């Protein structure tokens, strides 16, 4: 089983296990079937493999000793470098070594290194506030290049760490990244400035949001569970956060904004440093975070204009939790 196919070793650092839980949601036939479709072997995965204790350590040793080819090293969770650079906040059980050590040992053996989730990519929630464990991503801490492996790190095939950012990432982002790597189909040019696969990072989470009509008219929800746009008052960062969240279903049809709460930009480095996630920070009544590529003055002018033109239906629904004003005339009835 180890000799053919695309070998993946999946490790967990300072993680919550949520990326694995998301991966297990993937595909109509289940994640394992999807892995098989692309010839991906999980050499070992802490949550799903049979091999335990010494058998698992033998896999690590074989990779480290060059006896077992490693095509992708996947890390879920941040690398905890503390206390004092020892990595002791995260020892790999049964090995007497820290995960930080193991990562430094195994990463140079891998064709590709993949960070699954915002923790492994940028540090994530363990790196929030005072960062008590000196948590870091594999190649970034927040927006700063470096991290556990260093700014100059390139895997054997010459790629920087591939960052499947998201907290948790969509199951599809994880699977499609692994599949593309297994098929040799993912090049450096397929990654954005933070190493995120462009197939999802070239979109904004705002694209396709069911609240887009409210956005156009700046018809805003004022309290949670109302139907209007969440940007003006309730903290939505989806016009600044990458992700195709509203174009593909989460859990069969949801998304953050569909669920009635703001996008908190979980795909962005530093999302964990936010404050008051479900409130919009404002200066002189204008949201501080505005759409990335729009001049502020334009945004303000357009907002004022579109507010003055808001249809009554849209305004009424924006602050209701159920549709109170349906489209007029039953919608689309043809004239005889």
């Amino acid at each position: 089983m180890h000799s053919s196919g695309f070998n993946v070793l999946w490790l967990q650092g300072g993680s919550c296990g949520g990326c694995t839980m998301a991966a297990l949601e993937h595909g109509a036939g289940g994640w394992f079937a999807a892995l098989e479709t692309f010839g991906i072997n999980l050499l070992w995965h802490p949550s799903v493999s049979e091999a335990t204790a010494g058998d698992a350590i033998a896999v690590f040793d074989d990779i480290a000793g060059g006896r077992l080819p490693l095509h992708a090293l996947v890390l879920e969770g941040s690398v905890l470098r503390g206390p004092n650079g020892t990595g002791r906040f995260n020892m790999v059980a049964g090995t007497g070594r820290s995960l930080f050590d193991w990562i430094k040992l195994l990463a140079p053996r891998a064709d590709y290194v993949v960070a699954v989730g915002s923790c492994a990519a940028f540090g994530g929630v363990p790196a929030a506030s005072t960062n008590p464990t000196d948590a870091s991503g594999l190649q970034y801490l927040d927006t700063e290049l470096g991290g556990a492996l260093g700014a100059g790190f390139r895997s054997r095939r010459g790629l920087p760490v591939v960052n499947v950012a998201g907290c948790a990432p969509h199951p599809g982002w994880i699977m499609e990244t692994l599949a593309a790597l297994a098929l040799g189909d993912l090049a450096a040019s397929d990654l954005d400035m933070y190493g995120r696969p462009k197939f999802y990072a070239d979109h904004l989470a705002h694209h396709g949001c069911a609240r887009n009509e409210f956005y156009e008219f700046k018809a805003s929800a004022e309290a949670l569970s109302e139907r209007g746009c969440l940007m003006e008052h309730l903290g939505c960062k989806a016009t600044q956060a990458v992700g195709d969240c509203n174009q593909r279903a989460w859990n069969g049809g949801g998304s953050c904004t569909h669920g009635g709460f703001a996008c908190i930009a979980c795909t962005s480095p530093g999302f964990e440093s936010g404050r008051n996630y479900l409130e919009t920070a404002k200066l002189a009544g204008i949201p501080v975070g505005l759409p990335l590529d729009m001049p502020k003055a334009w945004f303000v002018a357009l907002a004022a204009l579109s507010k003055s033109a808001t249809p009554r239906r849209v305004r009424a629904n924006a602050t209701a939790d159920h549709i109170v004003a349906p489209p007029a005339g039953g919608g689309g009835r043809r004239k005889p």
Partner: protein
Amino acid sequence: MRRITVGPFNRVEGDLEVKLDIDDGAVVSAQVTAPLYRGFEQILEGRPALDALTLAPRICGICSVSQSMAAAAALRAVEGLAPAENGTLAANTAHAAENAADHLTHFYIFFMPDFARDLYRERSWYGLIAERFTAMHGACVAEVLPARARLLEIMGILAGKWPHSLAFQPGGTTRAIDLGERMRLLAIIADFRSFLERVVFDDTLEAVLALDSAEALDRWRDGRGGDFARFLTLADDLALDSIGRGSAPLMSYGAYHGNAAPLFAAGVLDVTTMMRETLDIGTIVEDVSHAWMQSGPGAPALSETRPDPEKPDGYSWSKAPRLAGRPVEVGALARQVIDGHPLIVDLLRRTGANVKTRVIARLIETARLADAMETWVKAFRLREPFCHRPARRAEGAGVGLVEAARGSLGHWIELSGDRIRRYQIIAPTTWNFSPRDASGVPGPLEQALVGTSVGAEGAASVAVQHVVRSFDPCMVCTAH
């Protein structure tokens, strides 16, 4: 006497190391280590109060709804707020879906693959079990993973996404459900019920829930297909009721609270006398004598978390919670026996807490949850609100107590100027996998491992693996 270390301990949630002292092929003493510390309680200190709703769920990706519910309940306790009734029903539904998904994941992905291991090759049932439960490749995964994903579509509708949703708020849930969505939810729950009836039980849920004694269960099992019956057969063959025995009291905070009594009652039960006592959470203390933590007041409403990696007696990042001075076992077994489920009460009376009864309780609970979810979704009043607008109160303290799949979860919060001054978490596995306390009393797993026969296999002993996994541990929650 020799000492062995078991790890990495896979197919549990998170990182776990177990040290065993072995004499004559059996465990004489065990030491359980949580080798990962991320510092959530420290991270939350000083933050705006409501940020707990974003950060606390991220303690755990397998029970993020439970963490959300505990955080929301703690904040709600500070506000003195009543949530919208629909919000309570929606949150209970989502929580039950997560817990049921956890029970499935545990049984199929974490627990059963051990019986497909080579060393059981001589057993009469081996062929069938290996074909069905081998890790990653067994036939069951092609049925279970799609069923699990379908069940979690409840999250897409009620909570936007899973794991890590912000839908669970002190005032209720953030998405009001319409009639079409109620029908979609009922369809998902019906699919889940059908999966349980076809694949897990090979019988109607009504028939399963009517089982009320050990004899009834034995009669029901004979000749039945379905994975529950398969488990019962091998459990008898391997005498799984004789390993992993616990003698600690069982505890439940009560599960699925609403305006009326919780679906599953709260309480403490002494397994030796089978007497139920009322629960006094004021007697909960966390002992840190063997944790890599600085000592301080042990009551969660007063204590702080400060790591001390050099502490000489420390062997785990987990603190040791005690209820009135005693370790307690938590989980589905505790919930179902404290709620008085006749089958579980009878099994416990006969053989106590052990590997077999823990697993049975989990599957019976799953069947009960399928029923409950349907009732809650039908009870939504679709024209009424799902979320009340909370009146923020910036000072005060509150406790949020819920039951996660693995047992009792509590968040203790104290606010000052609408900032978090103190945040303390005691998770289910913190109870079950606690280290020793100051008087040297071992935690529930440490006790349950004593006497386990490891034979010639030592560290690879499959019996040890069964015992540990029977608790369905979640290590990322444990030391958080």
